[in-house]
């Protein structure tokens, strides 16, 4: 059994998630945060690609080579080609040991390959490049590398290219993140709750609607994936079955409920400012006490007693 067949013999669901992330090729963007780090998932994808027989190149800017290779067995480590941009990325030691042109130059050099073997490039990380380069330069380089196999001409001789990028979301504004996101064929946003990690996976297949799914997972020490159902309901700390919920409506000094008679009496009550036919009749009916009421008027000395009606000339 070749190593690649051995990889496919793993659990079906595990293969689904990693396979679906690597299936489309192009740019796979992993978006992580301080609380939920993404380098373990990047290493899991690198391990998967290596086991599938692809050529794997690592452009490492953020961690040392030893730290990146830690946890992989020698079989996988032998298949990884590591380009070290951690030790001296800005050439402060003036020895020109590093690849001339830095990590961007190395990325652009990948465009010029002509191998038919499928290749995976792990970029650790685009955040490092985005802080030091203009966003447009990085986007152009990533577009050129990840779309090599789709350009016309000698497309038949160039193998599939997959670029894995680990982006730290909090470091950049929405503009650059959105630009990289629009370049990505697959986007994984990491989050989680209660100690469990969650991946939101967005796949953009050509000529189809983007698909969206979520998956709870954890990464084992050997960088294989363990898929999970999510945090269990029993582990929620707020519901305790041994303490019955207290009913606040007991022992009140006032009445919260109405009896049937009281409810009927309330429903048949006429509101004071609601005009109904009964009210109209009551107003029009002459009241029994009306005949006995008089108004006594004592005019002042200054009063102008004019018997004419001032509205006579209105002609209504």
């Amino acid at each position, binding site marked *: 059994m070749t190593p690649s067949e051995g990889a496919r013999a793993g659990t079906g669901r595990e293969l689904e998630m990693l396979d679906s992330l690597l299936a489309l090729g192009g740019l796979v963007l992993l978006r992580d945060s*301080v609380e939920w780090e993404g380098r373990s998932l990047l290493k899991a994808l690198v391990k998967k690609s290596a086991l599938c027989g692809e050529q794997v190149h690592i452009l490492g800017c*953020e961690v040392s080579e030893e730290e990146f290779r830690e946890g992989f067995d020698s079989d996988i480590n032998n298949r990884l080609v590591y380009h070290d941009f951690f*030790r*001296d990325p800005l050439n*402060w030691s003036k020895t020109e040991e590093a690849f001339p042109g830095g990590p961007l130059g190395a990325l652009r050099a990948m465009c010029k390959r002509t191998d038919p073997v499928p290749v995976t490039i792990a970029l650790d990380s685009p955040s490092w490049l985005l802080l030091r380069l203009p966003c447009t330069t990085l986007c152009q380089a990533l577009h050129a590398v990840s779309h090599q196999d789709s350009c016309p001409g000698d497309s038949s001789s160039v193998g599939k290219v997959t670029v894995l990028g680990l982006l730290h979301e*909090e*470091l950049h504004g929405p503009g650059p993140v959105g630009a990289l996101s629009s370049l990505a064929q697959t986007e994984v946003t990491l989050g989680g709750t209660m*100690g469990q990690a969650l991946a939101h996976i967005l796949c953009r297949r050509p000529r189809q609607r983007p698909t969206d799914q979520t998956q709870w997972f954890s990464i084992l020490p050997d960088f294989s994936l363990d898929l999970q159902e999510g945090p269990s309901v029993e582990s929620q700390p707020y519901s305790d079955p041994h303490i019955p919920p207290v009913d606040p409506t007991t022992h009140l000094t006032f009445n919260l409920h109405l009896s049937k008679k009281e409810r009927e009496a309330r429903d048949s009550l006429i509101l004071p400012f609601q005009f109904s036919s009964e009210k109209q009749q009551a107003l029009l009916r002459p009241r029994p006490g009306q005949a006995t009421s008089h108004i006594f008027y004592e005019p002042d000395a200054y009063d102008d007693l004019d018997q004419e009606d001032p509205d006579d000339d209105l002609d209504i």
Partner: protein
Amino acid sequence: MFVELNNLLNTTPDRAEQGKLTLLCDAKTDGSFLVHHFLSFYLKANCKVCFVALIQSFSHYSIVGQKLGVSLTMARERGQLVFLEGLKSAVDVVFQAQKEPHPLQFLREANAGNLKPLFEFVREALKPIDSGEARWTYPVLLVDDLSVLLSLGMGAVAVLDFIHYCRATVCWELKGNMVVLVHDSGDAEDEENDILLNGLSHQSHLILRAEGLATGFCRDVHGQLRILWRRPSQPTVHRDQSFTYQYKIQDKSVSFFAKGMSPAVL
């Protein structure tokens, strides 16, 4: 060093991990007690310490160090401690003619691009001496604090580059440790400080965050401390664990307790 903090971090001077970057940050409170803790911790662990102190004078750290049981003066005399007193050397940069680049050279230059002279000072201070006899266990770099570099005109990316090179040299090449302090102003407008804080958070193995209480000042609880393990080395420790404790700073120690369990309240 504070023994209770060692217990919380599950470490002692003779069995501390190497090659780690610890980020200290404080929000709405003063986190300098953590700097004093790590300074005395690593001096007691017999490490070669390079302290880039940009905020306070040597005598300030020395007085606090004496309360915690270390003598900075003696450590400096026997070569264990290399102390860059930012407040004094800043004056030297401006008023004295320097032949070689001074670590704080960027203060003279109008368009200082990077902190390479400061990095070279650190590398020179911590490089192992070829005398054949290893006097010190491993090198340690302490910086108090990085936010002041932003105030002095350096960009966030320049400070991140400086820390990157220090990490490559101190943590990876020399297998030493680094402890840096950054203030979190909480100000949504300070983008440079946010980039620096988040960029360092992603590179750190351990983040200790001292926060003031949300309800304001209290006499018996001075703040709360959040401990976030980002990249634990043992696979059995669950990744990305976070703990929160409240603390009270006393004259010679700091006591830690779970939230709401202050002795004054119980």
